[in-house]
């Protein structure tokens, strides 16, 4: 049972890192152009990330 006291915070940490990743995607404008990004991922000539300008 005591393993729970270690696993629970660990899994919370995992969840928090996911939340942090989501926060980062939001901040870096990755939801500004969903249609364009869907096309870019398929084309090697359009590799620029959304951060680059």
């Amino acid at each position, binding site marked *: 049972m005591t393993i729970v006291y270690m696993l629970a915070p660990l899994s919370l940490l995992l969840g*928090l890192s996911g939340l942090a990743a989501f926060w980062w995607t*939001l*901040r870096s404008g990755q939801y*500004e*152009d969903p249609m*364009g990004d869907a*096309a*870019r991922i398929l084309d090697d000539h*359009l590799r620029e990330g959304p951060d*680059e300008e």
Partner: protein
Amino acid sequence: MTAVLARDLSAFVARGEDDRGRLELLVKGARCGACLAKIEKTARETIGVEAARFNLTTGKLAVTFAGADGDAAAVIDALDRAGYPATPFDPAQAIREEDREGRALALALGVAGFGAGNVMMFTVPVWAGVFGQELSPATREVMYWFAAAVATPCALFAGMPFFRSAWASLRRRRANMDVPISIGVILTLIVSFSETFQHGEHAYFDAAVTLLFLLLIGRYLDHKLRVRARGAARDLLALQSPAATRIDADGLERVVPVGEVEVGDALAVAPGDRIPVNALVESGASELDNALISGETAPVAVRAGSVVHAGALNLSGRLVLRAQARSENSAIAEIARLMEAGAQSKSSYVRLADKAAALYVPIVHSLALLAFVGVWAIGLGPREAILRAAAVLIVTCPCALGLAVPAVQIVASGRLFRMGVLVKSGAALERLAEIDHVVFDKTGVLTEGRPRLIDAPAAVVAMAAPLARASRHPLARALADAAGCGEVATDVVEVAGMGVEGMIDGRHARLGRASFVGVDSPHGSDTELWFGFDDDVRVRFAFEDSVRADAAAAAAELRALGIAMEIVSGDVAGPVARTAQAVGVDRWICGVTPFDKVGIVERLQASGRKVLMVGDGLNDAAALAKAHASMAPGSAVDASQNAADLVFSQGALRSIPESIRVARAARRRVMENFAFSALYNVVAAPAAILGLVNPFLAAIAMSGSSLVVILNALRLGVGRSR
């Protein structure tokens, strides 16, 4: 296209932070990844361009130049040659719009999702304990403290949009649905904490976060919809002729942003360009396509002395104009203002859910207060009184009430979507259900929206076709369409406002107005073309904008639904009367301006009618925004599609009565759901006051009532659809 002048568009190049020139363009015609690649490549390969990034979702291209100044015209010309017409944005409007509210909502949604997912890790084992599995009270308490640690910060953060809205509403002495939601969430947290402190069994940390997560999904989608509607009016303003060719005192032509044109400036407009501002024609003759302003496609001839309006397309001859107004006084700017005003008046519509909340909140909350006072008064003590009052609020927590409307509207929109109708908001469905009067635009809605050749022998059409193919006049194009592919006449000269002449098989021929070809015609000149070889036969081609096949059936269905109809068109009396007769509508008004259309809708609504406006042109946009509800076909201009509440697939007029039927059925389901929620609360609230409800029973009842509401909404989806 036209004579390539050295165009000076430097006014559109803004200075970026790193002192490099930046240019924002609205690019039309991009559909897929291949277009995206081509647009970016074209822009990057233009001399002086350092970087270009195209946003396929919004259609905006951001160009960064290597130096402080850049050649905007070179980029635009290169894109134009590649087949993507581009329009520069005003530097003032090119400021990067940041959707702060959208980001805040998305973050709240993410936090609530994290909370809802992770709190289950601790509460599901507790529920297992309730059903006879081994779980010591000490472990349960630890689980609850874990759950509290996760849920409380998440719920407080994710609940902020609701708390803020509830507080704002309370300060205006009104109660919207966010008030009971906020009170419910906060109270659930408080009671759960007090339960956990007292080693109690039933805490509801999970319920608080999960409720917020589900509610935030709806809130976020709603926000996205509103942002798109706001963008419509801005894009419209950016699209009016962005640059004007000014003839300066020294006789040189300079391209200037339209905002710099002053009253009295001399302007040159080449064929194929749009009129930049309202103006008087000084010299030249041409024909104008007023489709953008009045919605009617028949070209209008203009000569020196004629008044022309901003947005009209110059078809055949070069014009020199004298500006009579600044660009912000143009018809398009006025339409954009009316659209915004209309959208605002619509936002004052009180949605069904808020009407229900206005009833629900005072009743339930005074009931809770009554329970508190009553229980204390009969001597059960303050602690029991608080618990029972809390039980009333939790058991009547507006889960079912909050779901009653959105669940039905999601199912109804899904059913309409399968029929090719796009519903833009839940409020639109509620308004559509109340409609008792439909106002139709004629061109493009009831009719096909383009002239079609009628009753002409194929041999005669083939004879005139070579000349028709050489012209860009709408009627000549219709003639060319009817003839199909073939040879083109040589030595073609387009005579502004009259027609075209040229050589076919070595013979000189003319196509155009009756007087141009050399006959006296008793008929109206806008719906006919004459063709003739020199000193030879003269033939007349008649054109008509044909009525859509299902227009009469749709009108009959609307009449059967008890809805009055009328046609309001900018066209002349003849075609409007014929269309009205063909469709079977008695009332029609012709020759109205876009502003008259708004006025007609306003008058009808002032007399108590609930008007549905159906239109497709820019001239309908303001009326669409003003009407109680509005629909636009998929072929409509962007501004009208954005102003309309519903967009139906092109040509399917029958979907109008069907949409109204679905909207009315949806309103019935919503009412049933309200009735059920009321019934549930009538039973549950007294039970809670009497202390008969323990929190576990309350949870079952709450989820049960939500389930009933959802099942009732789903009945709408399996209804008969034709």
